[in-house]
């Protein structure tokens, strides 16, 4: 039997413990992630999403409970580098993640630090840039790229270390719609084609429309964990009330209240258009 890629057990994290400023950020979380999953983690500001993300590659260590990556305990200092190679993190601001003056040098930074031979590094950089569709930009200066392109270079830099899992913490927040779509498309391809496990953290439900499973967080706890469509449909019930339904889910609910027969779990614009047309009796293949 395969073991889970990531296993989080009763994870608790307190900032400034034993001081008057102590804040419980994570309050007993348990879940596991299987290899190849595309998991979305959603929660409002202050729900603990980012604190959780930082536990997944040992940037933070549990106050109590345990995080295992491929069986390695994050508290085991000797395993830290292997854990960080396996779980790559992408953050919100692409400008803070690029280190070199040429795209391919930036992507080579990780594998160079792994001490790989130059020929292998070149091969990996080529592969990683191709995987994110940035091969044509290899000799460009990163700071002259668009936001979406920068984030793709940052992803390539992680891919070049051949991680098992990518964790993206609000990685689309600072991008314009085109950049956001670019990054989401890249993730979807990496997941489907290359089997890379994706954990996409966001407070925008719309960002998670490619995820298969969604975990919703509130005040340091998991409040919902299930198939994406089911969680989207219940977005307004998520405790804390900070999320709200994606616009198409809300519109579908209104139209249902108005008497249109629309199926549950519709959250993409295309799917809603099909459902409305079917409910209106326009399409011959509409009757189920």
């Amino acid at each position, binding site marked *: 039997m395969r073991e889970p890629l990531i296993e989080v057990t009763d994870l608790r994290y307190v900032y400034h413990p034993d001081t008057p400023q102590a804040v419980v950020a994570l309050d007993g979380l348990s879940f596991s992630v299987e290899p190849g999953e595309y998991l979305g983690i959603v929660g*409002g500001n202050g729900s603990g999403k980012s604190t959780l993300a930082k536990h997944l590659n040992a940037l933070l260590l549990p106050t109590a409970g345990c995080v295992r990556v491929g069986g390695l305990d994050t508290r085991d200092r000797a395993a830290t580098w292997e854990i960080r190679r396996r779980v790559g993190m992408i953050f919100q601001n692409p400008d803070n993640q690029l280190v070199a003056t040429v795209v391919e040098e930036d992507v080579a930074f990780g594998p160079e630090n792994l001490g790989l031979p130059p020929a292998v590094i070149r091969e990996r950089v080529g592969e990683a840039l191709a995987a994110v569709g940035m091969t044509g930009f290899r000799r460009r200066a990163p700071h002259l790229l668009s936001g979406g392109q920068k984030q793709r270079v940052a992803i390539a830099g992680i891919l070049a270390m051949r991680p098992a899992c990518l964790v993206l913490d609000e990685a689309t927040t600072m*991008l314009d*719609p085109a950049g956001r779509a670019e990054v989401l498309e890249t993730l979807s391809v990496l997941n489907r084609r290359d089997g890379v496990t994706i954990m996409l953290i966001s407070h925008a439900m719309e960002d998670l429309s490619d995820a298969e499973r969604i975990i919703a967080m509130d005040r340091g706890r998991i409040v919902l964990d299930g198939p994406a469509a089911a969680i989207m449909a219940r977005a307004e019930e998520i405790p804390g009330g*900070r999320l*709200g339904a994606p616009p*198409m889910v809300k519109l579908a609910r*209104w*139209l249902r209240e108005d008497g249109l027969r629309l199926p549950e779990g519709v959250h993409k614009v295309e799917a809603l258009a099909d459902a*409305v047309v079917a409910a*209106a009796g326009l399409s011959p293949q509409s009757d189920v």
Partner: protein
Amino acid sequence: MKPSRTRWWPPRAFRPRAMSDPLIACRGLCHTYLRGTPMEAVALDGVTLEIRPGEIVAIIGPTGSGKSTLIQHFNGLLRPTAGEIRISGEDLWAPRADRRRARQQIGLVFQFPEYQLFEETVRKDVAFGPKNLGLPAETIAARVDEALRAVGLDPGRFGDRSPFTLSGGEMRRVALAGVLAMRPGALVLDEPTAGLDPRGKEELLERIAALHRKGMTLVLVTHSMDEAALLASRIVVMHAGRVMLDGSPHEVFAIEDDLRRIGLALPQAARLIRLLRERGMQVADAMTIAEARQAILAAVREMGSGAH
């Protein structure tokens, strides 16, 4: 003393001398960064634009289209390399121009303004600007309370807290209050909702709409077509340092192909309507999901009455 509730924006001192004067007017505005160096980059390439008192205008455009450069000209933070910028009719870069006054008149709220909070308490942070104006303590206190209420933060509850203990959305509203406490005639906001969760976004957008109802002139730079459609009565589309389009949301979203070409998307409601038409449904325009609901219901009823 109870402050007057009637029309405190724009404050009398900063009202345009004649209402026919645009509050902000640029003519042929150009800006080139690092001019004369190999890194030279043209950010604005002849922008002509007027913002009138009481308007709420969204400026949209892809990254690098010049939006942020443009709004930094609105209060004299950047000097045009060519062209002119006038605030309430006054040329900002004329030899004896009062740029200090213009800066007070146009309140600029940068992206992620909460990074600029620094004081120990919310009240002190909001008071920072008015204090630098040399106002008497009582006036400052009144302005701080007024500004905090305007952003939906109860001064009694939040005033003495450290800004760093607040949620992201609350911190951003404190930063906004700091600008409002200067009593600007217009607010220019760069990506005001970026990084906020849906509830934080909704709260901030409600506050922005409320400021507008009180008569505040608003310019909103945003990537979000949905926000532009929801709030603005006029949308300016920037591309490659120029104004590509300037019109009502309906006019702007009608040219979907052009928007898509420059990397912008329609609001989701408008996309849905387009897809419904492609699928043979005759349905009216909609910019927001509330409008889409009405349009779809009307279309379905129409079809029903035709069928029977």
